[in-house]
């Protein structure tokens, strides 16, 4: 009869052995994580297959594992040292933290990177992606500039002299559009809507693009100090505060409800190019017409209107055994052919200069006129300041935004000054 103790010990040894990492020929393969957006999966599959057909270094691809957010999944993988070699879709604001922690490969140390990236991107974008240590840790990949989408009935039904391009015109439109259609004593038709939730990233869709527009691409953080305690930020808070005070905007949270732009209860909102497919797919009448114009600006503003570009970039983690090969693959994604495919498959704009004049993309914009508006806007964009604690900065602004804009508990001047003071304290510590 077999001794039970020996069986238990044997089982424990087998368990330990089964946990041992197996080594096989696939260890040399590069691992690429894309976002789990359907279009991006299709886009990535196309290029991975192309690479694997031609090259000797195999490339494995998978969408980022499921999690609450891609940021959390990436963080968990960094902590567990299970990062992929390449990750596409990294929010520009997260890069500085990872760069400072030393988990990213400085791409400017790779052969051919600097020349390629200088040819692809504007000087402004290059400045933006250069880390505080002078290295570049990200490949500027795609952008989704934030603009104002509007229902074309805005022009025909409300006797507006023109599109509400400035704060005063927007407020005037708000007064004309505000209505109680079901006669229950409450407003149910508004000029626009933007998220009211206090969560920091909601400010990327309202305060931040408006601030960039008003300040012609101004910074939030400069030389490790708050740079937003100025008339532009105060003006944005005042404009938004008035929209809520006069009930031109609804304070309701609409995240899980019906899209009220599609149901035509609101006539504008601030959004990116992803909205085109969404509205076309879900619109309730075939003759529903919409278009885009830049973010509203203060009265008297002149020159082009800037906006937030919502940049997502590609990074190589330091767990990558062959960063040069990784860069060679990334390069295939961001060539003109790659960028054209990105446009066609995902309806997202590549972060490259001369997008609108480059002959490669002209056919696309001829057949997709709404995307052309975004491509034109792409000449006047700003991403995120290089700041390790940018999320906390946005959270502080968000707290003040709620107190001032939504609940009118503070004046815009006080709210912005308080936010700047809190950010300065944070940066000093």
């Amino acid at each position, binding site marked *: 009869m077999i001794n039970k103790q020996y069986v238990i010990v044997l089982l424990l040894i087998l368990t330990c052995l089964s946990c041992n990492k197996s080594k096989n020929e696939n260890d040399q393969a590069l691992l690429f994580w894309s976002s789990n957006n359907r279009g991006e999966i299709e886009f990535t599959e196309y290029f991975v297959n192309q690479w694997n057909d031609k090259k000797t270094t195999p490339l494995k691809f998978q969408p980022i594992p499921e999690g609450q957010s891609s940021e959390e999944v990436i963080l968990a993988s960094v*902590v567990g040292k299970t990062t992929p070699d390449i990750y596409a879709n990294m929010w520009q604001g997260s890069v500085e*933290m990872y760069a400072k922690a030393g988990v990213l490969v400085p791409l400017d140390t790779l052969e051919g990177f600097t020349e390629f990236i200088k040819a692809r991107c504007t000087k402004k974008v290059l400045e933006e992606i250069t880390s505080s240590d002078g290295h570049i840790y990200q490949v500027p990949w795609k952008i989704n500039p934030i603009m104002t989408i509007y229902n074309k009935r805005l022009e025909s039904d409300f006797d507006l002299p023109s599109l509400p391009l400035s704060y005063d015109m927007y407020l005037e439109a708000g007064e004309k559009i505000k209505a109680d259609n079901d006669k229950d004593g409450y407003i149910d038709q508004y000029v626009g809507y933007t998220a009211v939730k206090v969560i920091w990233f909601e400010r990327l869709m309202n305060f931040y693009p408006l601030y960039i527009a008003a300040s012609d691409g101004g910074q939030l953080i400069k030389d490790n100090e708050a740079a937003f305690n100025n008339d532009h930020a105060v003006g944005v808070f005042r404009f938004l505060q008035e929209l809520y005070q006069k009930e031109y905007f*609804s304070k309701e*949270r609409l995240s899980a409800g019906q899209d009220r732009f599609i149901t035509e209860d609101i006539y504008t909102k601030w959004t990116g190019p992803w909205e085109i497919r969404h509205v076309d797919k879900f619109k309730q009448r075939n003759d529903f017409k919409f278009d885009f114009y830049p973010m509203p600006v203060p009265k008297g503003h002149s020159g082009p209107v800037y906006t937030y570009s919502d940049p997502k970039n590609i990074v190589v983690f330091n767990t990558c055994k062959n960063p040069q090969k990784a860069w060679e693959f990334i390069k295939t994604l961001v060539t003109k052919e790659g960028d054209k495919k990105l446009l066609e498959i995902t309806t997202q704009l590549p972060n490259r200069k001369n997008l609108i004049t480059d002959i490669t993309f002209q056919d696309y914009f001829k057949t997709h006129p709404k995307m052309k508006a975004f491509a034109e806007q792409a000449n006047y964009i700003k991403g995120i300041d290089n700041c390790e604690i940018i999320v906390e900065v946005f959270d502080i602004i968000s707290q003040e935004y709620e107190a001032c804009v939504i609940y009118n508990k503070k004046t815009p001047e006080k709210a912005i000054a308080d936010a700047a003071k809190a950010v300065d304290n944070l940066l000093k510590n």
Partner: protein
Amino acid sequence: MKKKWLPYILVSPYILHFIVFVAFPVLFSLVLTFHEWNIISPMKFNGFGNYIKMFNDRMFWKSLINTFKFLIIHIPLQIIFSLALAEFLNQNIKFKGFFRAAFFLPVIVSGVVVTILWQQLFGFDSGLFNRMLVSIGLSKVGWLLDPSIAMGSIALMATWKNVGLYVILFLVGLQTVPPHYYEAASIEGATHWQKFRNITLPMINPTIFMVVILSTIGGFSLFIEPYIMTGGGPLSSTLSSVLYIYKQAFQYFHMGYSVTLGFFFAILILGVVVIQKKYIEQGED
């Protein structure tokens, strides 16, 4: 020799689990309270910096007050509703099984699903509750928009979600009361209220204690509801302590500080539960 080692081998899976998943994290967390750490960079020794920061952090104290506000609304609501429903289900009524299952259903439904459902009900313009209020000529209520009401709305929802669990506990308690007590009281001419006050309540006191303890601990861990519905707003009125600790850890990556808050919070919960236990035991004496 064989007999000496076999028990240790048999308990070793649990011991291993305890060391890896309980003892090590607790000890590591304790060490972490004296450090600054953003998970991905090396830890920096910070002495009592995190503790000093905690005592000066107004937002943390506000989140604690909010959590206590939630408990003050939630626990009485929870006891009253679940006891009333348990009393109802303890009678000889038709479809008893259906009602029991129906009341228990929200307990097993995902908290996220329940929260999204209630978010729709609480909507200001298009929510069902406000539509009902307007239809009978009343004013709309800012269920999640009014800072003075939002925590109450969340407590109402949490009560609805958990009531089924406590109904079951109370039902068990009610069924342990010997029926001849009620028979004797009836012969003496006691009313329903007198029977409930003088027989039922004293007899189910241990169950009430358990419900108070469980709903206190559950209430202290308030997270999903404000996280999804309000993000801690309006004006931080629904920012619970757990949500604040979560934000410190996973939004700002202040791991050392969040663990310090977590330790303090755990000790606080322990203190509250011990006080509750003593108070209820005194009542029993």
